[in-house]
């Protein structure tokens, strides 16, 4: 088994599919409900298969923070309204193969959007660093 991080972005990544271009507040309330319900179903299905580890959504605004020396408060920078890349949330899965990780990501990306059509939203899939092998 290997762990993968599925990252959903508010912004960034390749050119969005046309289905993913409309802002959510321009959908109907029913379309929003159907979308949220689908996302929940994906997590439930992954749980059912014993592959779900964790999933969380992130607020759109955050800041960069760093150390500024002994006795000084942390330095902050941001939030950057124009930053090219913005992470919206993540899901961690533990699966048998890279192919299975991609299949799960594609399933998540098929969530319905405006007019009930699949969003085809881009998800970034990142493998976790593993443990060194026991037997070489």
């Amino acid at each position, binding site marked *: 088994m290997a762990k993968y991080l599925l990252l959903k972005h508010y912004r960034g990544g390749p050119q969005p599919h046309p289905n993913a271009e409309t*802002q*959510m*507040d*321009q*959908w*109907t*309330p029913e*379309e*929003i*409900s159907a979308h*949220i*319900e689908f996302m*929940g179903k994906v*997590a439930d299905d992954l749980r059912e298969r014993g592959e779900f580890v964790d999933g969380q*959504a992130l*607020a*759109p*605004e955050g800041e960069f923070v760093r150390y500024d020396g002994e006795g000084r408060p942390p330095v902050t920078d941001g939030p950057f309204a124009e930053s090219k890349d913005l992470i919206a949330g993540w899901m961690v899965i533990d699966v048998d193969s890279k192919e299975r990780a991609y299949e799960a990501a594609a399933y998540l990306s098929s969530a319905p959007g405006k007019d009930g059509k699949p969003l085809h939203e881009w998800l970034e899939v990142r493998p976790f660093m593993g443990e060194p092998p026991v037997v070489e």
Partner: protein
Amino acid sequence: MIDEHLLRDLTPRALGVLVRRGADFASAEDAVQDALAEAVRRPPAEAPDEPQAWLVTVAWRKFLDARRSSSARALREVAVTREPPPGPAEQADDTLLLLSRCCHPALTPASAIALTLRAVGGLTTAQIARAFLVPEATMAQRISRAKRTLAGERFARPGDVRAVLRVLYLMFDHGFAGATGRGRNVGDADLAAEAIRLTRQLAASVPHDPEAAGLLALMLLHHARRAARFDAAGDLVALADQDRSRWDEAMIAEGVDLLQHALARDRLGEYQAQAAIAALHDDAASADQTDWPQILEWYDELVRLVPDNPVVVLNRAVAVGHVDGPLAGLRLVEELDPGLPRRDAVAAYLHERAGDRAEAARLYAAAARDAPSTAERTHLLKQAARLNRNRGGQ
């Protein structure tokens, strides 16, 4: 094993007995947890006839064992090493004593809630960890740190009831907000129900304090609506849109009764005032029949009782919007800090009532971007979507 609910009721009593016998709080709490674990492991056939006496005996033995196995110096410090005969003190009500220790002002609210759930609520560390979505080791550490903060303090006199009420209020709020219609993100411990159970115990032990009864009433009057707070799809439903036939009438009746008795004592406090507002909402057969003028009077009381609280001012603006018109409400909202959570959502609500649907939709979408939870974000997005659709294909 002994019935789990009974065990959890017995937890604070056993802890109270140990503390009264001279055990320090942290060691006594560990000993009671060990005794609970032993109770759970016992085969049903060996269930004791007198669970409370059994639990106290086992917990006391665990306490002494732990003391004996620690250093000799610690042993000398044990005030009482032989089990004293049960005395009248053991029948005394330790609820406030224990709660005020767990809700000590030296602890952060998160630590106080966790410690209260374990020491008085009788929940396991694993259950508490699941309720807060943190690893069990993290929660165990949070509880140990809280106990270290309290270590060494012998306590014979109960502390401040206000601090206890505050922690129980936050516990309820966490449980109520964290519960989702889809049943995800919640462990097996229902913190809202747990807060009600503990506040009930507290209110019984301080019958002279109308704020304890007021807080219990407040919790019941909100909890009564929980089945209607989410629709079939699991999305949040605003108070005005809830199916009121799904409200728990018996719970509302109990809350109203408690509140009336508390108010009759003529010592008003913030929890009684908030409960009165909740009771007026619960009392309306439909959203249109809500007695907004009376709600506004209670908000005026609340502003007097809790001055400089922008959240109260924001909620009062909604009542003003219903009584004096949405524009009057909006004028109050505009005086508040733009960064105040839920300010945009309230402004959107009032703009819609004033007939400005485009501005309402814009503000709902803005509120969704800043929403503090995914349930609220979805709800606010749907409000924006509803207004955008009804504006006719713009």
